């Protein structure tokens, strides 16, 4: 350890140390100031993330419901098609024995068209697998958002960011968009409700 000189000046080694400590203190102060300035945004984002995740989960539900409805109708058409094919086959056999050859040929053609449509219906069903692929990606996005939120919460805890009542959840464009999404959940009307209201206003 060095000793002060007779003139009172700080030894070079210690001077360097004081300068570095000073630089470090200034760095910490700048970092704390930056975090403090960012804290309303961090708190806002942290509060918005669960809502954003919820909307992504809703997307899964909505695409699933739409897909299942299309499937239900497709399956009904497939079943009807199967019944009609059986009926036509029986009619064709009968007509052939009763010498209704031309008529039988036309019915055979109709049966062929129905078989083609059957393939198209199956293709519709398999095309609906888009919902599964969308849902898997959404699940991964939700997991990412959950992790980001968890990290933000860590930041809040580590740096002791203070939450002010007026700064929760509704900041900026993201906040406005989330508000719109939330409203669409509760205020979007089904057609029957709209029709009932129109009737009340005299619409026929």
């Amino acid at each position, binding site marked *: 350890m060095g000793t002060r000189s007779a003139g009172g000046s700080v030894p070079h080694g210690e001077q360097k140390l004081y300068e570095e400590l000073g630089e470090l203190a200034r760095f910490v102060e700048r970092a704390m100031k930056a975090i403090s300035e960012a804290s309303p945004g961090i708190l806002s984002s942290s509060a918005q993330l669960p809502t954003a995740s919820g909307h992504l989960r809703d997307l899964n539900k909505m695409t*699933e419901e739409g*897909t*299942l409805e299309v*499937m239900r109708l*497709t*399956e009904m058409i*497939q079943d009807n098609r199967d019944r009609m094919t059986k009926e036509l086959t029986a009619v064709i056999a009968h007509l052939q024995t009763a010498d209704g050859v031309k008529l039988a040929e036309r019915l055979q053609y109709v049966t062929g068209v129905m078989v083609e449509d*059957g393939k198209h219906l*199956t*293709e519709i*069903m*398999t*095309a*609906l*697998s*888009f*919902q*599964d*692929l969308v*849902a*898997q990606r959404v699940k991964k996005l939700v997991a990412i958002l959950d992790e980001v939120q968890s990290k933000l919460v860590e930041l809040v805890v580590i740096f002791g960011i203070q939450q002010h009542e007026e700064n929760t959840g509704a900041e900026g464009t993201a906040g406005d968009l989330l508000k719109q999404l939330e409203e669409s959940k509760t205020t979007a009307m089904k057609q029957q409700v709209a029709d009932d209201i129109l009737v009340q206003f005299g619409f026929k």
Partner: protein
Amino acid sequence: MPADPNMKILVVDDMVTMRRIVKNILKQLGFANIDEAENGQEALQKLRGDTYGFVVSDWNMPVMTGIDLLRAIRGDEKLKAIPVLMVTAEAQQSNLVEAVQAGVSNYIVKPFTAETLQEKLGKIFK
């Protein structure tokens, strides 16, 4: 040996829409005896409780994944001979290799067509 149209088939996927698609295609191919499970664990319980001739399984599922289900099937004396077809969005070569090493009977990558499923069935049950 060709596929028995009366054999009991288990379709395993956590997405109800995907189970319905696979079930629909199998029905179009003449298989009417189809059961469903939402994850590998539920599938394993059903497989151990009844006689199944074929399993069609997804990979990514909660509770127990398809690859773990496959390993459990191949490790079970009663179940190890059941053909297992993986139908999955996991399209990496490493996934396919892992499934082959675990004893998968064939592998389909989503999105798929009915023709592909039929072709794989034909290869498994030729």
